[in-house]
């Protein structure tokens, strides 16, 4: 297919489909459109992958004009939103965007120069990875959302359906993301960036409760800060480039590399933009607040795609800060977020908040990898993006499914889910295990990250603590699901296809990508950042991942740094967990009540015991959260202080070097 068409399908089709679903209000037709769009996007992304890296510039100048107009339209809408919500932060940060932007484009005359930029879109392997993730994972989420929103509104007994509006933003968002990861022109990048921010605001505030609107506004103003810094970066680049648009493309910034100290400041500003979008400390609150939104929003925005835009930007810019102190600071900031979010996740009682913190943590890890900036680390980062998207998306969808089964987001209410909903629990368990344990992909990524982290020892220490904390909160959650009474005879629940198809596809995806990590690596990762990853084939030996030392990578012989036998480990996993799961059976006669100091009531169907005055009491097992030690109240002041200090140091270092 023609590149023209592929670009159109990737970016514009979602918009068109979005408008269609907004207009058409029949549940089934709307569903059909969404599903067809999803299929089209998936096929298109695969075609793009087959097409390979390329560049593209739309022939018509009207596209540029349209983007400029839409930019201002959006910013004006922010001002309106700020005024109507009486949220001054939204207003202020909208103004800090629109004024410099207008001054730059019209006062400094950048608009003319911007039109000259070619190519407008560059997509390399990194972009292709992102497009695949967005198209495949994102599409599955939109399918999930069909039924979810239906149930959601029925449960809340909302009279006037707002599903169309919801699906409009959701589907359109995919297009914006596709545009974002391919854009080369910084202004266009900025445009797509703002579209995602807008979608985010609209989707978070979708339920129109007070909390939802407040949290949406918070997401809006925080990301507006990011927008502001990006505009500042553009202005700086434009001014330093002598009033030409020469430096206003990602490509040119990357090519200039870290050699030009002058570039460090704009790169740092843009990394900062990425930090905010990736909800790094101290900006994590917008993502946490976003958890009030319906779960597909969380899944789409906060697991697989939008927050990935932040890490994508940092990763994209990685060559530009190679070998500089900025890189080290980025690594430390990322590692600190990984650590802080992992620790905070322990004390969370709400499932989605755990997921949110885990997302923040993993984004921190990816950013830290980008900061470390060795080929190994970059490879780890890209693998983490892929695996995290699949696993975390599955987790969010599971959280959504569970929410609609038990009508609660609290982990405490999920107690004993294994008994009531074994299928959902099974899928959730796979999701949780895949987040932090070998042989699954996330751990492989973490393993690669640790193999490379010694370059920044401070980050290494944060990594290991965070890694341990990760184990605690996931295992704790899974433990709550598994806790059952000693009885048999549970039935499998049946899920709606709109739920089960994405869930099972994602489970399949975890295993396919996980087992096939070596081909995945060779196909996507090894070429992804062409000027960074030099040692290519050596990472994947056969079906395994090995990390060669410098001498081996240079073609010599010698020892490896590490090795990860993927297939053997999956076989071990099969023997250890899957085979017992299939073959271990329990006969009813073998069941006994649990040990309750000899005072259990007796039967296996009850968890009561006999207490004071021969009365029966019910056994309650609450989860452990250690809120006194790891709760937000206890540690947040420290984490805020440190993270703000780190950002200050980051900019101080950059400004010091630039001057």
């Amino acid at each position, binding site marked *: 297919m023609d590149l023209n068409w592929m670009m159109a399908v990737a970016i514009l089709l979602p918009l068109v489909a979005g408008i269609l679903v907004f207009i058409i209000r029949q549940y089934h037709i709307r569903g059909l459109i969404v599903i067809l769009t999803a299929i089209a996007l998936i096929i298109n992304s695969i075609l793009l992958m087959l097409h390979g890296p390329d560049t593209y510039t739309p022939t018509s100048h009207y596209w540029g004009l349209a983007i400029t107009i839409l930019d201002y339209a959006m910013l004006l809408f922010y001002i309106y939103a700020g005024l109507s919500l009486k949220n001054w932060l939204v207003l202020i940060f909208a103004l800090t965007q629109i004024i410099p932007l207008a001054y730059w484009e019209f006062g400094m005359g950048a608009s003319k120069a911007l039109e000259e930029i070619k190519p407008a879109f560059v997509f390399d392997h990194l972009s292709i990875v992102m497009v695949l993730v967005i198209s495949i994972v994102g599409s599955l989420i939109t399918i999930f959302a069909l039924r979810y929103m239906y149930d959601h509104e029925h449960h809340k007994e909302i009279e006037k359906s707002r599903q169309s509006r919801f699906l409009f933003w959701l589907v359109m968002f995919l297009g914006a993301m596709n545009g974002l990861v391919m854009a080369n022109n910084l202004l266009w990048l900025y445009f797509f960036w703002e579209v995602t921010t807008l979608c985010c605001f609209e989707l978070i505030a979708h339920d129109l409760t007070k909390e939802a609107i407040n949290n949406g506004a918070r997401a809006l103003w925080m990301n507006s800060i990011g927008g502001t810094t990006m505009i500042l970066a553009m202005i700086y680049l434009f001014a330093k480039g002598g009033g030409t648009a020469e430096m206003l493309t990602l490509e040119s910034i990357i090519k200039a590399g870290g050699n030009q100290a002058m570039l460090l400041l704009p790169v740092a500003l843009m990394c900062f933009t990425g930090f905010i979008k990736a909800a790094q400390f101290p900006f994590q609150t917008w993502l946490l607040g976003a958890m009030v939104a319906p779960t597909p929003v969380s899944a789409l925005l906060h697991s697989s795609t939008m927050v990935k835009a932040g890490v994508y930007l940092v990763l994209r810019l990685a060559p530009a800060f190679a070998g500089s102190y900025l890189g080290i600071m980025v690594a430390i900031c990322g590692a600190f977020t990984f650590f802080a979010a992992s620790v905070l996740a322990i004390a969370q009682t709400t499932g989605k908040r755990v997921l949110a913190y885990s997302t923040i943590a993993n984004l921190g890890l990816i950013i830290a990898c980008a900061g470390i900036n060795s080929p190994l680390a970059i490879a780890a980062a890209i693998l983490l993006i892929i695996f995290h998207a699949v696993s975390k998306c599955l987790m969010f969808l599971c959280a959504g499914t569970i929410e609609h089964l038990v009508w609660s987001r609290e982990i405490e209410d999920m107690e004993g889910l294994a008994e009531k909903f074994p299928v959902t629990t099974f899928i959730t368990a796979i999701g949780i295990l895949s987040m932090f*344990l070998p042989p699954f992909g996330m751990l492989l990524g973490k393993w690669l990250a640790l193999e490379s982290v010694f370059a920044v020892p401070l980050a290494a*220490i944060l990594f290991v603590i965070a*890694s341990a904390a990760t184990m*605690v909160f996931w295992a704790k959650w899974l433990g709550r699901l*598994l806790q059952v009474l000693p009885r048999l005879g549970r039935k499998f629940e049946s899920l709606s296809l709109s739920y089960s198809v994405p869930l099972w596809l994602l489970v399949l995806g975890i295993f396919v990508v996980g087992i096939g990590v070596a081909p995945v690596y060779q196909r996507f990762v090894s070429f992804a950042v062409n000027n960074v990853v030099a040692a290519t084939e050596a990472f994947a030996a056969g079906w395994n991942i090995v990390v060669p030392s410098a001498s081996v990578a240079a073609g010599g012989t010698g020892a490896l*740094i*590490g090795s990860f036998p993927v297939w053997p480990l999956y076989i071990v996993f099969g023997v250890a*967990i899957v085979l017992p799961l299939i073959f271990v059976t329990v006969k009813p006669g073998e069941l006994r009540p*649990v040990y309750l100091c000899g005072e259990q009531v007796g039967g296996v169907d009850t968890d009561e015991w006999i207490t004071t005055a021969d009365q029966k009491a019910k056994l309650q097992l609450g989860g452990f959260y250690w809120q006194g030690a790891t709760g937000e109240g206890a540690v947040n002041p420290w984490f805020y202080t440190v993270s703000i200090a780190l950002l200050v140091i980051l900019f101080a270092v950059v400004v010091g070097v630039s001057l």
Partner: protein
Amino acid sequence: MNQWWIAIIAIIVAPIIGGFLAGIDRKITARLQGRYGPPIVQPFYDFFKLLGKSRIATSRMQFVWIYGYLVFMITCVVFLVLKLDLLLLIFLLGFAGISFVLGGFSSKSPYSHFGANRELMQILSYEPVLLLMALGVYAQNGSFMISEIVKPGAAPLLPSLWPIFIAVLLVLTIKLRKSPFDLSTSHHGHQELVKGIMTEFSGPYYALITLTEWYEIVLVLGLVALFWANPLWVGIIIALAAFVLELIIDNIAARMTVGWMVKFTWAVGLVLCVLNIAYLYLIKGGA
């Protein structure tokens, strides 16, 4: 095929060594307390007796996870003898620990639940230290492969990694479930959590846990022995000395609380590791 044979022999021999070590443990502990103590082969009697007991269950999943515990622990031992990646070994050990924890969580039993949560805290305590040990090894050798540590001519790790060695001794205390860290479960019955995480495992499945613990003893002592892998017999003597040291510590300390354990292992273990790694980093000037 050579590697296969090594793996198979390790799988067979390791529990035998572990069982005897457990027997020696009980005998020495008894003697330290002024008792006569059980025969050295007592752990094997216990094991086979448990195998012959009838099975009682409180949930199906608890059994599934115990297989996970066992198989992952065996995998760790195989990783050790095949000299594979140390970092990955530690992650696998983490999975083994998590399997056990999930086994504990699988039944609705208060004591097993408390024990599982404490076991998690133990993982939180020792996992960073072990990971930092791997990083320390990397700092010294430039590789995470165990084969690099044991290859002929490689310098012993202990002289440059002695602070990490001390930290690993703390881990050893936790892993062997000795006072002051016998928190999630202990080998003698008296404990506020009954048998903690093991409360609901009985009969053959308790035997599997015992078997896994034998592998675990061999594994952690193997990790200790890595600190002087050339010649290996010195390392083995160091490991056995560490083992005896743990037994003595067990008998001269009271059981502490979970919060204290996390604070202590982080304050002492992590700081030692960090100082050690920082020193090596400065000496070697980065990777």
